[in-house]
């Protein structure tokens, strides 16, 4: 049973690529065979977040055009031998690939992998259409901001309207509990109220994510709240029932910080 999952958001900058990298790595930690495909042709950066830029030889467009076999273009991860990355081309644009070609590629990869994760570009144009073409389900990333939520809502509408209705699960990213408590940021309930789809994960805003992203080392599974939140998302994807993290957790990152101030 293999699954093709697209990570999408509509709005840019909400954390699609970071989520793809962390969820992909997390699934690999759970001993699944995973391939990450960067479909953001022309704006390649999943390879950076994974820290694999220097190993790229062939890319997605080469595979689709038949210049190489998928095996040749896929890069094995530094840490996990069951995790692969299929990078996108930097010098081409979204029209280099059609939705049909993407579907054919993902169907081919299904035979070998448990999970195929597609990092979708921002927007709802060709790049988005390419990314969702072969997907079974979607992870919808949003932040608790009105603009991101409006775009996410549009994306759900498009996913529901497609020929094959795709199930979409919500990841609320960059939650700042301190701001939520003060009433300056939407709560997860507010977000869910508008979008009305299942919540699969809530990830706190954490400076460790920025550090990890810049170093090209996904932090999933590490001992901070964000790492745990990503790991829980992975477990939920595999069908495990995991309770949601208490983002106010006593031993959590934020309380440590606020604890410091209280002293």
């Amino acid at each position, binding site marked *: 049973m293999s699954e093709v999952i697209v990570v999408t958001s509509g709005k840019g900058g909400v954390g699609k690529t970071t989520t793809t990298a962390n969820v992909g790595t997390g699934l690999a930690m759970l001993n699944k065979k995973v391939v990450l495909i960067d479909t953001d042709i022309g704006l390649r950066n999943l390879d950076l977040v994974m820290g694999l830029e220097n190993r790229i030889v062939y890319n997605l467009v080469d595979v689709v055009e038949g210049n190489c076999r998928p095996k040749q273009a896929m890069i094995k991860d530094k840490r996990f031998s069951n995790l692969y990355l299929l990078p996108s081309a930097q010098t081409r644009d979204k029209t280099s690939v059609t939705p049909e070609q993407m579907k054919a590629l993902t169907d081919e990869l299904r035979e070998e992998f448990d999970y195929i994760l597609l990092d979708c570009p921002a927007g709802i144009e060709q790049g988005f259409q390419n990314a969702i073409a072969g997907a079974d389900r979607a992870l919808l990333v949003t932040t608790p901001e009105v603009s991101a939520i409006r775009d996410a*809502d*549009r994306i759900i*509408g498009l996913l529901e309207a497609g020929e094959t209705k795709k199930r979409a699960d919500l990841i609320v990213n960059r939650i700042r509990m301190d701001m939520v408590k003060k009433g300056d940021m939407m709560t997860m309930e507010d977000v869910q109220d508008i979008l009305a789809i299942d919540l699969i994960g809530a990830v706190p805003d954490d400076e460790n994510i920025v550090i990890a992203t810049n170093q090209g080392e996904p932090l999933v599974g590490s001992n901070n709240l964000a790492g745990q939140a990503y790991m829980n998302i992975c477990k939920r994807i595999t069908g495990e029932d995991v309770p949601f993290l208490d983002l106010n957790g006593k031993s959590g990152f934020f309380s440590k910080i606020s604890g410091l101030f209280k002293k």
Partner: protein
Amino acid sequence: MKNSVVIKGNKYGIMVVLDKDMPFDELKKDIAEKFKQSSKFFGKTSMAVTFDGRELDIDEEREVLDIIADNSDIEIVCVIDNDKQRENLYKQSIEERVSSSVSENSGQFYKGTLRSGQVLECDSSVVILGDVNPGAKIISTGNVIVLGSLKGIVYAGIAGDTSTFVVALEMNPVQIRIGDIMARCADDNSKKRKKNNKPETKIAFVENDNIYIETLNKEVLNDLHF
């Protein structure tokens, strides 16, 4: 721009105002020109026409109608005399028909949430079993009832019927239009307002050319007449 021929729209069709001093042959040319220009705007329609500004005898009227037919895709259904009494009669019969078609208990159901970018257009009243999210739009010729939270844009009675109404379990629309009257939500912080008020079922209706939004209760329902 010459003003020898002016086309005005009224509720039932168009009124053609003709110059009363110009020689008829010249006027015909102007009519042809005018309708040629506006044929794109009118497109392929059928409507009633009224002449004003100049007395036309039967032959002249026929000639003018031929010109209109030759120069545009408008199908003239009938010519209405510009006579107050008859106009009123006509108005009455049309309004009877229009209002009877709305008050016919026709309606549609839509199940699901309308999301940003989605538009629902209905040729009757409509009941939505779900939310209407910001960025979504409902357009109906009749009433709109939202069994959920209304946060988008809603047009009721789009054909100009101000006796239609909008009901929502949670009334928070960005913009609301009933007939040709429009209202938008206040610019105050919607978040704060939401926190203060418990959601309650509300109705929006038109009175004295203004849209009022009130809590739905028996009194309001009794006052409704449509």
